[in-house]
């Protein structure tokens, strides 16, 4: 009997010890959960946000995002821009070291950018720097970029992580994707594919030595699993929890929930080539029928806020008041009347079912679409939600097969990135197939002008035209960025959604 009990205790201890995962109790170890598997850490080829976030810890760029997404010096301690805006000269700090101990020089910078510029390489980042005409190394610590024509948002591309030329040349082009070496605050220690990535502090970092000695990154796809791990102490920090989980953390004093606006814009778009979506009255009626402004705060909760502009609140130009005043407002009676009229005129064909396409990986958008369908049906327009896998939907959008869609977009802090590709006739993301000469002109001009006030004016023109006059898109919610962390994690503030700011010019995260 005694022996049985003993064996029972032993087995249960064994089971419990097997079940217990990595406990993040160590003060110098920081475990974070991210929503997806990291596939590639090469900073020249990271267009997926999880890859980019992890790569940004390993690599540093010439310049960095500081407070409020202002550009501040990084590896380059200073830079000059020529009068006509076509020449950028950077001075690199001396003694910046890569993780393997070699020094970072202008040659590495040149190599980094030429690698991305090479059309053969097929980098998704190329579009941001294709205005480069030539790159000239003046000496070891000075480099000059020459542009074909002025391109104001160019400086943002200088945040790309610098890669070591010798290391890549010795080990082949693909070496960085699995064994990255950069000049960033953390170096890759160990990568168990599918399980976790272990980073350790780089003691010779050019700016500051990270206070966290070990960072472990674990991909946890399910939001509810992330929440559970956070509660059990398996991770210190989680991004992208669902609304349902957030509330319980906000009420719990052992955790901190921090939010910042500007993680992206959720908008509804229409296809200008498909009837009846290309009819302005139809688009207006759709928006009038749905109480977006009332729905969004309740559906998105902490995750978002009402939007009136395509640009996040943190980004200039601020024209929200005008857009808010002039946006189409909720008016179900008017919508019902308009739908009836349009049906009579034959604009809406008989047996027409409006389909709203939405990516099924965005629960808040799916819910908005669901609530929207109910409202449209009440207003007399038969509508359906079509929630599908994002890749499939994106392909269909590219072929112009979708009339009405929900998308979320996030980009670097310059209006050009947010507007040019969507509203320019030949823009790479112009999924509305919208064409307007005036808008084209404004967008083109805003790229060339370097005076920010003049640019702001042009972007205001664009926004007013596409959002209130032509109603190409209807932005309904700004996503907030939500960080949930244990209460002993200090100095970790959400800001730029494309990075996780563990070590930045203003912060150096540590655990109390």
């Amino acid at each position, binding site marked *: 009997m005694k022996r049985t009990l003993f064996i029972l205790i032993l087995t249960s201890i064994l089971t419990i010890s097997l079940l217990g995962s990595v406990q993040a109790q160590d003060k110098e170890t920081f475990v974070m959960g991210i929503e997806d598997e990291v596939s590639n850490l090469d900073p020249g080829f990271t267009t997926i946000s999880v890859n980019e976030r992890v790569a940004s810890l390993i690599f540093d760029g010439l310049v960095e995002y500081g407070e409020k997404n202002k550009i501040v010096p990084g590896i380059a301690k200073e830079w000059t821009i020529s009068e006509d805006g076509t020449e950028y000269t950077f001075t690199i700090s001396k003694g910046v070291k890569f993780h393997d101990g070699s020094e970072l020089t202008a040659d590495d910078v040149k190599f980094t950018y030429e690698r991305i510029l090479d059309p053969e390489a097929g980098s998704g980042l190329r579009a941001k720097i294709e205005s480069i005409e030539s790159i000239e190394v003046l000496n070891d610590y000075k480099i000059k970029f020459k542009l074909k024509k002025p391109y104001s948002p160019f400086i943002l591309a200088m945040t790309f992580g610098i890669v070591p030329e010798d290391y890549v040349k010795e080990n082949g082009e693909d070496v960085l994707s699995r064994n990255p070496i950069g000049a960033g605050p953390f170096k890759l220690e160990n990568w168990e594919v599918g399980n976790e990535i272990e980073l350790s502090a780089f003691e010779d970092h050019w700016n500051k030595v990270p206070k966290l000695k070990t960072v472990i990154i674990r991909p946890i796809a399910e939001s509810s699993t992330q929440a559970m791990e956070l509660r059990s102490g398996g991770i210190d920090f989680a991004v992208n929890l669902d*609304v*349902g989980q957030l509330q319980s953390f906000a009420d719990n004093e052992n955790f901190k929930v921090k939010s910042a606006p500007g993680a992206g814009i959720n908008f509804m778009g229409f296809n200008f080539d498909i009837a009846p979506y290309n009819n302005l009255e139809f688009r207006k009626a759709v928006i009038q029928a749905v109480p977006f402004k*009332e729905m969004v705060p309740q559906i998105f909760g902490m995750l978002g806020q009402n939007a009136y502009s395509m640009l996040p609140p943190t980004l200039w130009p601020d024209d929200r008041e005008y857009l808010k005043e002039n946006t189409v407002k909720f008016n179900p009676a008017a919508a019902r009347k308009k739908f009836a009229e349009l049906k009579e005129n034959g604009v809406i064909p008989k047996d027409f079912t409006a389909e709203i396409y939405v990516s099924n990986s965005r629960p808040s958008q799916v*819910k908005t679409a*669901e609530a929207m*369908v109910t*409202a449209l049906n009440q207003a007399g327009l038969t509508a359906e*939600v079509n929630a599908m896998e994002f890749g499939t939907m994106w392909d269909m959008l590219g072929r112009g097969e979708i009339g009405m869609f929900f998308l979320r977009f996030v980009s670097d802090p310059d209006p050009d990135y947010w507007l040019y590709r969507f509203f320019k006739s030949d823009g790479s993301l112009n999924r509305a197939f919208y064409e307007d000469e005036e808008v084209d002109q404004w967008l083109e001009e805003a790229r060339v002008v370097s005076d920010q006030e003049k640019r702001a004016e042009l972007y205001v023109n664009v926004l007013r035209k596409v959002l209130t006059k032509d109603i190409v898109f209807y932005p309904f919610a700004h996503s907030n960025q939500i960080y949930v962390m244990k209460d002993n994690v200090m100095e970790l503030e959400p800001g730029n959604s494309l990075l996780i700011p563990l070590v930045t010019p203003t912060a150096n995260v540590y655990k109390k």
Partner: protein
Amino acid sequence: MKKKVISSIFLIIQLYINYQNWIVKNKIWNSLELKAATLFSVFVILLLMLIIFKSDLFSSVKENDLFQKTWKEFNKNLGGKIAAVMLLCIFYAAFMAPFIAPYSPLEIDYSNMNYSPPSAAHWFGTDDFGRDIFSRVLYGTRIALGIGFSAVFLNALLGITLGLLAGYYGGKTDMIIMRLVEIWNSIPFILLALAIIAALGKGMLNLIIAVGVTGLINFSRLTRSIVLQIKEKEYIAAAKALGSSDIRILYKHILPNSISSLIVLGTLRIGISILVVAGLSFLGLGIQPPTPSWGTMLNRGQEFLTSAPWMSIFPGLAIIITVLSFNLLGDALRDALDPRQLD
């Protein structure tokens, strides 16, 4: 006498419901679902009145030996009786949903989109859009049963036809048909359904097709085995000698004699179909929101599992009870209808 009292009580309840809906709320014929509910309630009223006023209604059926034997066997099985009562309630709820649901299953109160726990006003609580879960579960019953039955009907139609042909003609025909069905069956059930929906697109009809064409082997194999037994019987030889065509023999002699086993299998398959439809809807491939279906409700509920468990519990219970009832009924029917006991 007891039967009459119970029937009268039911009749009064039914009349009250219809009075409320037809006269007070004027819901009779405005939409398709109301038409169905109206017809169904007229049917129920007529049936109850017949039971009350015409006591010899079922006497001819009752005198039938076969029926008596089956009825006796069925009555021995308590689980089967409970299941039959449960299913009657479920069917009633499905047809009468528009009349008994206290709220609209779709309407959203845009000023108060939040969940609330079960209360006197909302028996099963409300979901995160403020919709009444009791009403949604009721409407979900229609979808579950409708799709479950149609899918099994399609399934049986295809499976039985293939089984009849394979069993009756034998030889090469049998070989080819059964091998094809086996190959078809070797593709995992849920994967095949996923692939069909991916190819045809979402929608109720496609869902029925997807569930209906998977798992043909159950019906065809059973039919084939029965046909193999029956076709050796003397009356088949007699029919052949009289010059009956193959089709006539198949549908007039063989099929009626195998129907009892097929009914049992069909009952069991309905339960499985309901589960599959709920599973596909849970994965986002079946019924699309906002249409209320148990699977989509479960899917929505999982996000709020800790804060609002009633969002998952009630649709989950509905699935469990329905599927369990079909399985129990199927078992009871098997005991009652087993041809070996009837010989």
